């Protein structure tokens, strides 16, 4: 047998970013479901979920311990995701009689897996140091970097497509067909946008792209300055940032691009026939995809984990700086997730032909122009 050439502690440290990233994503998803309902309620001038909490007249503490906590609802509704999960798991897992049982059960996994895989190449923070061992907070710094994100996001179409076909329902099939056409169309723009980003940074690696956003040319000082917001990619590639954000909405099938599940026409689109935890997996997949897109957008265009003053904190304590960088990336991701929710509950839905026209006749030409201009500037 060949020796692995790795000692156990090195393997152990390599597991840290893996556990950190995937644990954090899994922990945040239920919170996002709660947040989405709350955001929706605020925008529609309602209260939102406020019953299933810890303390208060309907809280968990009263139900289990008989302790009402003074009759006031504190953080009511925070346990709503738990109630949702119990409901989803305990519902009947129904498979339509004419459905293709194997593919019907396989499709939700395709919805859940690709968004997870996106996080593999996202640097979530600065390097941690433990007794001489440097632990980069990235699952795998692949040489192909961003191409990995494109690859796995192109696999996301399978869940919707298979789910739509295997259900053997016209609404599901139409939803699946729409989703495939939409995802393929917007992937072209996304690829072209990423090309201009690669050209600008001269690198495919997200790690290097984050590093490149750490310094910028300050016209007032007349020299390179460190860790300013002025170094963010969005100032260098504003059009690319805008196009990428639009494509992210379309890739995640979120409003205003939620053609595949448009309730008004298609009942629920590709997941019309899904119930119980299979529906739950589609549902979770959507929230993980929102997080993944938030992470990619903040890494490419908004400085990733970098923050002003990183260099001075790192000089004092590298680990503290790394922990702050984790929180900074988390905050940036949450801002983009909230933005996606805000847009969802504010804008009406496009018509399907409008989605296609926007994709092919507006976004792709704009992305091409951006690519050519970037190429000329970088000559």
């Amino acid at each position: 047998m060949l020796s692995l050439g790795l000692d156990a502690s090195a393997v152990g440290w390599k597991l840290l970013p893996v556990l950190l990233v995937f644990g954090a994503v899994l922990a945040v998803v239920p919170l996002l479901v709660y947040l989405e309902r709350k955001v929706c309620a605020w925008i529609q001038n309602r209260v939102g979920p406020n019953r299933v909490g810890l303390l208060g007249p309907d809280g968990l503490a009263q139900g289990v311990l008989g302790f009402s906590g003074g009759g006031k609802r504190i953080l009511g509704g925070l346990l709503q995701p738990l109630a949702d999960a119990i409901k989803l798991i305990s519902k009947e897992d129904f498979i339509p009689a004419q459905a293709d049982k194997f593919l019907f059960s396989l499709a939700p996994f395709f919805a859940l897996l690709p968004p997870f895989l996106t996080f593999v190449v996202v640097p979530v923070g600065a390097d941690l140091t433990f007794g001489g061992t440097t632990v980069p907070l990235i699952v795998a710094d692949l040489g192909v970097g961003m191409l990995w994100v494109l690859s796995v996001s192109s696999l996301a179409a399978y869940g919707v497509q298979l789910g739509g076909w295997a259900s053997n329902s016209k609404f599901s099939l139409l939803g699946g067909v729409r989703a495939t056409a939409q995802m393929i169309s917007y992937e072209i723009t996304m690829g072209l946008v990423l090309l201009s980003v690669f050209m600008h940074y001269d690198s495919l690696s997200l790690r290097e792209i984050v590093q490149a956003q750490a310094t910028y040319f300050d016209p007032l000082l007349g020299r390179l300055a460190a860790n300013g917001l002025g170094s963010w990619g969005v100032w260098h590639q504003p059009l690319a940032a805008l196009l990428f954000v639009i494509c992210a909405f379309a890739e995640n099938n979120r409003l205003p691009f939620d053609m595949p599940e448009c309730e008004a026409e298609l009942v629920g689109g590709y997941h019309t026939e899904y119930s119980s935890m299979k529906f739950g997996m589609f549902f979770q997949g959507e929230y993980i995809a929102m997080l993944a897109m938030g992470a990619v957008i903040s890494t490419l265009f908004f400085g990733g984990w970098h923050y002003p003053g990183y260099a001075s904190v790192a000089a004092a304590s590298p680990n503290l700086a790394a922990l702050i960088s984790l929180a900074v990336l988390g905050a940036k991701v949450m801002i983009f997730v909230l933005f996606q929710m805000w847009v969802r509950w504010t804008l009406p839905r496009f018509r399907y032909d409008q989605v296609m026209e926007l994709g092919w006749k507006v976004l792709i030409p704009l992305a091409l122009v951006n690519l050519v201009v970037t190429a000329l500037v970088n000559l």
Partner: protein
Amino acid sequence: MVDLLFLAAAALCVISACAIVTCKNPVYSVIGMLPFFLGIAGLFVLLEATFLAAMQIMVYGGAILVVFLFVIMLINLRPEEIRDDFSFGRYLGLAALAGVTGGVILSFVRAGVPPDGELERAFAMGIGSREGQEAMSGGVLFGSAESIGLTLFRQYVIPLELVGVLLMVAILGAVILSKKKL
């Protein structure tokens, strides 16, 4: 370890390839191609050709297969419409496959096992990582996007441009064939 990973990827390829040709439902055959392409991408990664691996998943796994699936779903063949005839040709094909596979295995056995070391060294630094790639080829990022780009645009510029022209012709042809009115 590399051997184990190779065996896993190779087994994935062989099993899914068998599934592709034996499944009666064409949709299952197309789905079988997905693990096949992923296995091929895994083999590329083991050879430190990470760019090819990413392209394999993106182009074949993502784009081409989705279109295959799209077409087959829309045709929506009923099981009774799919012919299933055991013909002589099938056994001939099996014999040819066995012959070719045997020949390939024999040629490898005769050539001997390639020297160890390089791949293990690269793996020790992390498969697909920059350090691993550099160790593979003495500083040059073998199989990376950079090295492939440099080779294509330095040594093979004219063939590359010709391929571009060919693709353009194909795209225009497809547009003209599919549009009744232009």
